[in-house]
């Protein structure tokens, strides 16, 4: 759907942005420093071999992109970059605020070369402001964004999600932002600068906590498997025999069917306890006492602990119950629903002599196919194609540039 060229200069803070645009058809060129992005040294690695061409982290978020190397700290490198910008529609980057400006490659400078250029800059806190120069790793932004404080057990430190989330989230929001700027450009012919703050991306997730603050000036706290709802904290995550479930006790229209189905089943095993006495339709959880809630939760836990994820999910599907198993990666990969939806692609890695199963379809369109055409690029894989064939740089000069560390 998108017929654009994107120069992707991001480190891992912005990889997801180019990935999304590429799956919608954009020609995304990953611009790395000679020797490759630093984050190619972050694992996990294929077969645990630490090698910048074997990083699964790199493979995850750089599919569909072509790859070139360029040292933009050199004058010649900057010249080449500017040449690339003349034919580009987007530049995405995640350097510290002011870094590109100092190299003569900031938005105001690039827009003089190409007034249509849209530059999307992704940083932990934004281009300006008291924290603009703060270093941000995932851990720092999810703490500063408010996510961690309300996550984890009460008697342990605040905790984050172990698979880093902040950067892919920012990349996704940056892709949306870039296309809004793009729409403006379609109408007016003008590019612009898009300034994405990773902290703000995280802050939005504190949506409910903000509502409780707004209403009662109340600070929500972490409560393990429970989340703040109405007057109390109630379980969202429940243990079962072989793992855990996602489930909420809900009354009224939304939850009555689920609870009735569940309690009927529990009753056949004589485990329904006092849950049998509840009138689910009129159940108003805001009026339930803490003692009652704990008792019901215990009764439900006892029952769940006797059954596996598969058993519970099967019955949930049959009886239309609002309940899901808590999957581990293996189960997600084997999940029938994703297979039926043709969600997976077995992507070729000729250098490794294998294919690796990766997620593909994040949207279906009646008009176009959104596909992953190729694996993430090798270091300098497309130097010849882009510098040689497109920019017309001779083989001799390419060899010289390589020798001088410019590419």
């Amino acid at each position, binding site marked *: 759907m998108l017929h654009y060229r994107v120069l992707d200069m991001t480190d891992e803070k912005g990889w997801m942005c180019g990935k999304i645009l590429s799956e919608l058809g954009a020609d995304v060129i990953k611009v790395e420093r000679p020797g490759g992005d630093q984050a190619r040294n972050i694992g996990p690695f294929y077969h645990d071999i630490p090698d910048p061409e074997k990083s699964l982290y790199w493979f*995850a978020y750089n599919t569909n992109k072509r790859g070139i190397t360029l040292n933009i700290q050199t004058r010649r490198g900057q010249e080449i970059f500017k040449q690339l910008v003349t034919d580009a529609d987007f530049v995405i980057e995640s350097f510290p605020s002011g870094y590109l400006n100092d190299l003569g490659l900031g938005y105001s400078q690039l827009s003089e070369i190409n007034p249509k250029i849209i530059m999307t800059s992704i940083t932990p806190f934004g281009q300006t402001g008291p924290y603009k120069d703060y270093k941000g790793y995932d851990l*720092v932004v999810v703490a500063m964004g*408010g996510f961690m404080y309300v996550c984890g057990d009460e008697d342990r430190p605040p905790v984050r999600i172990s698979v880093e989330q902040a950067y892919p989230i920012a990349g996704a929001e940056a892709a949306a932002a870039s296309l809004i700027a793009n729409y403006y450009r379609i109408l007016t012919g*003008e590019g612009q600068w*898009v300034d994405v703050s990773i902290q703000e991306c995280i802050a939005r997730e504190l949506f409910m906590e903000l509502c409780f603050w707004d209403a009662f000036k109340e*600070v929500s706290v972490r409560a*393990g498997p429970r989340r703040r709802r109405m007057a109390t904290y109630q379980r969202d995550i429940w243990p079962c025999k072989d793992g855990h479930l*996602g489930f909420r006790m809900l009354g009224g229209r939304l939850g009555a069917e689920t609870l009735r189905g569940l309690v009927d089943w529990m009753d056949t095993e004589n485990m329904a306890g006092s849950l049998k006495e509840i009138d689910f339709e009129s159940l108003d959880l805001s009026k339930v006492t803490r003692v009652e809630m704990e008792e019901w939760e215990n009764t439900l836990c006892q029952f769940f602990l006797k059954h596996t994820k598969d058993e519970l999910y099967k019955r949930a599907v049959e009886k239309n119950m609002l309940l*899901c198993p808590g999957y581990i990666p293996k189960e997600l990969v084997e999940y029938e629903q994703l297979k039926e939806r043709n969600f997976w692609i077995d992507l070729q890695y000729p250098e490794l002599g294998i294919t690796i199963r990766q997620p593909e379809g994040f949207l279906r369109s009646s008009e176009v196919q959104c596909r992953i055409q190729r694996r993430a690029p090798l270091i300098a894989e497309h130097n010849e194609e882009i510098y040689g064939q497109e920019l017309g740089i001779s083989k001799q000069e390419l060899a010289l540039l390589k020798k001088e560390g410019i590419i």
Partner: protein
Amino acid sequence: MNREAKNNSGKPPLEGIKVLDLSAQFMGPEVTRTLASFGAEVVRVESIHQHELTRVSAPYKDNVVGVNRSFVFAASNTGKYGITLNLKHPRSAEVVKRLTIWADIVVENFGPGSAKKYSLDYEQLRELKPDIIVLSLSAQGPTGPYSMHPGYGFNLLALCGFSHFTGWPDREAVAPVGAYTDFLCPWFAVVAILSALDYRLRTGRGQHIEVSQLEISPHFLIPAILDYTANGRVQNRCGNRSPYASPHGAYRCRGDDRWCVIAISSDEEWKAFCKVIGSPGWTKDLKFNTLRGRKDNEDELDKLVEAWTVSFTPEEVMTRMQASGVASGVVQTIKDLVHDPQLKHREHFQILERPELGTHIYENLAFRLSRCKGGWKRPAPCLGEHNEFVYTKLLGMTEGEFIELLNEGVFE
């Protein structure tokens, strides 16, 4: 940025784009909220007969229940017009027809197969308006053995693998914030809509786009998924640890339940860290000199780090560390967030005024465009607030037509 900002009174890019928002709960409204921020005209369709979840979600103003008193609805629906329409009424079909012809984009999450019941599926809409763009949202996709299984963000996050990765290795999984997947997925949908608009400008053709939380969310776990598909390994949650950094975690600070985070991945950062904390004797122990050494002795290291942080407020830790190039932050509460100087600078939290709620806080998006100032012209609508305006002014009904349908109960 300020130099470019002088130009940011540019026309909102999506001005003139009309969005019929039939969706409910979180994900759809989040998508249309974003479009509204940049000028799209969004009409939210509800019914008095069946209130959507966020209309009847606590917290309420002064704890008094009311469809216009929920902070949750207000926070997700800024900038939209609100109408009521009884889709089960036999005469609603003619209203749907007019809404469709008015709209450029239709957003719905009725669930697989349900849109057809209301004459709102893509084929039917396309007959009325050939270049219509329809975005259908679902929990697990429109087809497949689990497509009809109900799902909301708060349990889909478990299905999609996030809760497994939240918490401590020696304990149960815990719940990550809220309806987590509800806040990951909207961006993909916004990208899809904008791409479809672009496509339509080029080709004159609309399209039907289908996205689901199940098919978007795993994109945020790809490295862990590949560790399984390429290496056969199932990763587990690991608290705040990282294989590539140490110290790396949350450390207790001075005050009640106050914490900082520190993340050190390079030897350079480690040296700077040691200096900040005054180079105490233990930092000279050779076993802490390398990342490998720090990882091998991480339990001990964490205790030593915390012995230092516990004497300072998290703000003091963050300021000192960051001044020396060490990544560190405050574990912020919602109160901290609302007072955060950087978020203030970004104008992240804004105030709007609304009948029955009074003033309420809403959040800006996470990005700023140098030429286009995003924002919402109006607060979230009261139930049916804009019926007369939308039906007569936007759809062009006469007063007579409007009153007739109103009396028949179509606008409920």
